[in-house]
Structure formats: structure tokens, C-alpha cells
């Protein structure tokens, strides 16, 4: 299902958001209050067996609280959590078929790598030989066999991360919770570890729920993502759905770079909308997305406040006026050259700033660039490239 989600993209409407043949984890109307602070507000979602599901959001959005409720460290104030059909209300952490990989890994400092991995196994009805075999298997899985006798402070950060993973997987949990699994690693190690993590997930088939604040991490790791803000889930969907078909302005702005323009719907023919966009000094046309139509049912009519969102890579920048409907003139205010691509900040006559991203497909000298500082340029976009959002709700 991972591949299916990844190749999907482009113009066709996304597949239905929750492909749930057998909901393995079911969170039903869960809320959590700490005193007067509401950390999680009425969250409902399901996770399928074998899925990698991410909870994505900034700090304080409630993602970690939700994870801790799944692990049993916090009790929901309201609502219920089911894991593999079993109601987890009142089930203590030590009886849940769930293991967690902690953000700082929480390895036992007084135990060797091997003893750390073996720790959970003593609660399972196994013989010592079976335990040995399982520990060996885990050490091999994370490629740490030569380090079995070391203490956690004698190995590197990346190795500690793998010990934590092996320890959490040793008892064959139904669900593995990962709290910012890559946050403590440096950038280079992070990429490598990310692939290792996915590899191990594919081999073991364990359901992963990952908490992260890093959108790149969420985009590459996950089958589906729940974007959270202030304790509320703002959208659940595959990485493509979240990126290309955001439900609301918060999600559009949170994932990737984007420029938002406020406008008013002038005319709707089929799914082609004509929008008055003061920042562009006129009208533009764009296709409405299925989720916008779903939100308004048939109530979408002229005069409705809409937000037009444009991703930097979906805007074309050129020196001469292109022969398309949606175009506007501007001046390059800033230019970031990254080699393979460039990022432009273009200021429109109305004063609005637009982010434009262009791939440097041809080798050009300093003079041969598409545009330079203070150059007059034309910006344009395809009606399919824009995202139309409800302008009244964040």
C-alpha cells in the first residue's frame, strides 16, 4: 500500500482517505486535559495493520500526548483506544502489546547492549535458549552483534538508536510507537537511519506510529500522516494527499513552502473557478479540488471568500510574457542559488511577495540566468497547479 500511495499524484483526485480493510488501531473521540489545558481535543482515527502512520505537528500540538496515551502512560480524559480490537481503557503500560522507542532512547545505562535488548523478554514464557536466540536475532537485525557487551555510553548515537529499536522489537509488539525517532541524530546519519528504519519495518511487518515535528521525515517514512495543531487533527492522508490536496490553510502552510492569496469566487463552471485575486491585479482561473467541493457540497457560489495557494515549484518564471491566462508581472527581490535549483522571491505590483522555485535545467553563466536581482519577470501557473481553499477558516 506504500507504493500505491507514493506513485499517486498529478491531476487525478486522490483515493479515499482511509483505506481501512481491518482497522488495527482505533482511536475514538479521545481528549486529554491537563488541569485546564486541553492537550488533545476529540481525536478519532484508525490505523491499519502494517502501516506506518505519522503524527505530525509543531511542539505542543498534542502528538506526544496522543502517543503516551497509546503506550498507557496517560489515560484519556474522554474517548477510548482500541488495539487489535481490545479496549485499552485501564490497561497499564506493562500489559499492553505496544512498545515504544523513546526520543532519548531511554537505554538502561547500567546494562550492556545485550541486557538492554533482553530486558523485556524475561516477561515472556520462553526458555533461556529461546531468549538467547531472540537476542541474537535482534542484534543481527540492527547489525550490532559486535557491540553486545558494551554499555550504552560506549557506543555512538546511531548505535544507541538501533539498540532502542531492537529492544522495542524484541518482544514482537503488535504496535511500535516511535517518539521523534531521528531527532537526536545528525543530518547525514538521519537519512541513512531513515532507510534502515523503513527496511526493518518492511521485514518485521510491525505497525509503526511515529511522532515527529519534521515534515521531511514524515513525508518519506509514512504511509499516512495526521497533521495536528493545538490538539486537533487537521488532516489525515497519504504524503501526496497532504502535500498536493491540503484540506485547509493550516495544512497547506505547514507542509512545504507555499504562498497564500486571498480572493473571491467570481464564477464557477463545472470544477473550473474564476477567482478575483487583488494581489494579482485581476482574475485567475483554477480547478477546485475534490476536498473543497466536499466541504461546500453544492453551496459553493460566487462571492465566496477563497484562498488560492501556490507552491513555489508550480509557478513558472520567465522574462517574456507567456501566452497563458494566469500571469502577472513582478520584480525579483531576492534570489537564492542552490546549484541544481534556484529560489526567487518576486514582489508583485500590489506588494505581495511570491516564492518561486525553478530547476536550473540548463547550464548558464551568471549572465544567462532566468532572472537576476531587480529584473522584471513574468509569473504564471497552470489552472491545475493551484490549490483552492476555504478562505474563511484557517
Amino acid at each position, binding site marked *: 500500500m506504500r507504493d500505491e500511495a507514493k506513485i499517486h499524484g498529478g491531476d487525478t483526485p486522490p483515493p479515499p482517505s482511509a483505506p481501512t480493510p481491518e482497522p488495527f488501531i482505533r482511536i475514538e473521540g479521545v481528549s486529554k486535559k491537563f488541569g485546564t489545558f486541553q492537550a488533545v481535543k476529540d481525536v478519532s482515527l484508525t490505523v491499519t495493520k502494517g502501516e506506518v502512520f505519522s503524527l505530525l505537528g509543531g511542539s505542543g500540538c498534542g502528538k506526544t500526548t496522543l502517543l503516551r496515551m497509546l503506550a498507557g502512560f496517560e489515560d484519556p480524559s474522554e474517548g477510548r483506544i482500541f488495539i487489535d480490537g481490545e479496549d485499552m481503557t485501564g490497561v497499564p503500560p506493562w500489559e499492553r502489546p505496544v512498545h515504544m522507542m523513546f526520543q532519548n532512547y531511554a537505554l538502561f*545505562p547500567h546494562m550492556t547492549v545485550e541486557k538492554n535488548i533482553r530486558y523485556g523478554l524475561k516477561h515472556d514464557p520462553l526458555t533461556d535458549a529461546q531468549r538467547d536466540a531472540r537476542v541474537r536475532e535482534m542484534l543481527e537485525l540492527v547489525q550490532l552483534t559486535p557491540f553486545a557487551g558494551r554499555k550504552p555510553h*560506549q557506543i555512538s548515537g546511531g548505535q544507541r538508536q538501533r539498540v532502542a529499536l531492537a529492544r522495542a522489537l524484541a518482544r514482537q509488539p503488535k504496535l511500535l510507537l516511535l517518539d521523534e525517532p531521528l531527532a537526536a541524530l545528525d543530518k547525514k546519519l538521519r537519512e541513512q537511519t531513515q532507510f534502515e528504519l523503513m527496511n526493518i519495518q518492511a521485514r518485521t511487518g510491525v505497525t509503526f506510529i511515529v511522532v515527529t515535528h519534521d515534515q521531511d521525515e514524515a513525508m518519506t517514512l509514512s504511509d499516512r500522516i495526521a497533521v495536528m495543531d493545538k490538539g486537533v487533527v487537521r488532516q489525515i492522508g497519504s504524503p501526496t494527499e497532504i502535500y498536493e490536496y491540503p484540506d485547509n490553510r493550516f495544512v497547506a502552510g505547514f507542509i512545504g513552502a507555499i504562498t497564500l492569496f486571498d480572493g473571491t469566487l467570481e464564477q464557477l463552471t463545472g470544477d473550473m473557478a474564476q477567482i478575483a485575486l487583488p494581489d494579482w491585479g485581476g482574475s485567475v482561473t483554477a480547478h477546485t479540488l475534490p476536498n473543497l467541493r466536499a466541504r461546500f457540497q453544492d453551496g459553493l457560489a460566487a462571492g465566496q471568500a477563497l484562498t488560492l495557494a501556490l507552491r513555489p515549484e508550480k509557478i513558472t518564471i520567465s522574462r517574456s510574457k507567456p501566452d497563458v491566462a494566469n500571469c502577472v508581472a513582478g520584480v525579483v527581490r531576492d534570489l537564492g542559488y542552490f546549484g541544481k535549483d534556484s529560489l526567487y522571491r518576486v514582489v508583485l505590483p500590489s506588494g505581495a511577495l511570491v516564492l518561486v522555485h525553478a530547476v536550473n535545467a540548463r547550464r548558464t553563466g551568471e549572465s544567462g540566468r532566468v532572472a537576476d536581482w531587480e529584473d522584471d519577470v513574468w509569473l504564471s501557473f497552470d489552472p491545475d497547479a493551484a490549490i483552492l481553499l476555504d478562505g474563511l477558516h484557517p
Partner: protein
Amino acid sequence: MTAPAQKRGLAHWFHRRGWSDVMIATPYVWLLVFFLAPFLIVLAMSFATRTPTAPPFSFGGEHPLLNLTGYARLFHDTLYIRAFVTSLLNAGLATILCLLLGYPMALALIRVSAGWRNVLLMLVILPFWTSFLLRVYAWMGLMGSNSWFNKLLTGAYNAVVPTDWALRAIPMMHSNFAVVLVTVYTYLPFMILPLYANLERLDLTLDEAAMDLGSRPLRVFWDVTLPQSIPGIIAGALLVFIPAAGELVIPSLVGDAARPMIGRVISDEFSAARDWPMASSIAVALLVLMVFPMMAYSHYQAKAQHDPTAKGTS
């Protein structure tokens, strides 16, 4: 001409690195003057011969320079051996009780909210604001056969046991029980504070990790908290055991005069018997005895720092 140059040299030295040398040297000088020097005097005294002079000892005579009779008596006279055994047993029992009482209190200190923690820490330290002697006298009052405390306990005791076992008062005073009780009361903060300092540094997510891996809270304590708190336990135990073993005031005031503790014996030898060499011999023996647990502690600490498992393959 040379004087100003020298003065400038001294100032120069002081500003460059003298101040740090002085800082580092201060505690060593302190220990040298106030610990090592007196100890050497006591050590020398323990080899002297008792004389009816002032001070009541001298070197020479029958045993020139080294008079080992003091040390010999330590092994022959059962009074000293019994005093040593009583001291070690009382101090050991008090240390274990302090640990059993202090550990849960230290654990509670780190589990409560920050506001409560400050209040409770204050309460732990509060007894130090009253004179130690006064507090021991208070216990004497409580344990005496006419006190309300003793009467209360006696009443409870008599209500439970058969009538022919009934007592007029529980004989608490002048017993090892009283010594251990007051020692535990006095030294409990010295157990709680190092334990608290140790437990406070422990990472509570480790407890959650152990729970997550299937351990119940008691198991988590046994597997995770206890092994990590061993340095705190040792530090607290030493802080209680060493002074408790040499304690003078408590056994003198509430202890059994027929079975004195070693501190009392040293004091009696010095003052009543005026046998300073003998008193010094006992003091030296006590010190040697106390050095062993200290050595065990530093050995453990060194082992924890330079773990032999560090030599793994890489």
C-alpha cells in the same frame, strides 16, 4: 632596586596563576593542619608510655620510642573487643534502619511537585536548627518510664499481651535499643540528602521504558532505580555509619553503661583513666577500621568510571 622588581614578580605570579594555586592549595592546607597533624600526634601518642606527669605520657623508659602495650591490650582485654562489636552492631543496625526509612523518603521527595519538594526538604533539614543535645534530652524525656510516650506504649503493650506479662513501664532507656533509635533519628538526614541528590539525577523515562517493556512498578524499582542508586546508598551509608560507630554523646546519655560503645571508652580512657596512650591506640584502631568501607567505596566508584567492559571490540 631589586625589591620592586621582586614585588612586581610576585604580583605577576599571583595574577598569572597564583590565585588558582592558592585556591587549590587551601583545602589541602586545611586538611594538613587540622586533620593530618592532629592524627600524627594521636598516632605518636598511641606509641607512648603512660606517666603520672602533665601531659600524662612520655617516650622512653622501659619501651623506648615504641610502646605497643596499648595495641596489645586491644586484643586481650574483652572490654575493648566488646565495645568495638557493640559499636559496629549499633552503627550497622542504625545504618540499615536509616536506609530503610530514608530511601522511601528520598523517592517521595523526587516524585512530589516542586513546591512540596522544597517544603519537605526544609522539614528534613529542620531538626538541625535545634541543638543536637537538646534533641537527645527530648528523647530521654520521651523514653523515660514516667513519660506519656512510654505510658502510651506500655498501655498498648499491656492491652495485647497476657496479664502476667504486663509491665509497669517499658524499659527503653539505657539500652542498645535507645542508642539505635536516637542514632537513626539524628543521622536520618545524612542518609536522605545524598540519596535524594542521587535519585534526582536519574532519568524518569527509564522507568517508563521498563514499564513499557512489561515490568510492574515494583520490578521497575528493583531493575532500574535501585541499581542506579547504589552510589547514593553507599554515600549515605558511610555518612551514617562512620560517625555513628564513633558516637559519644548518644550512648553516654541513653546507652547501657555496662556495655559501652567505643566512643565512650575512648573518652573514659582520656579523661577518667588519664591513659592517653591507650585512648590513642583505640582511636587509631577505630580509624583503621573505618578506612575499609571508605576504600570499598572509592574502589566501587573507580570501577563504575573505568568499566572493564569498555575494552570491547570496535
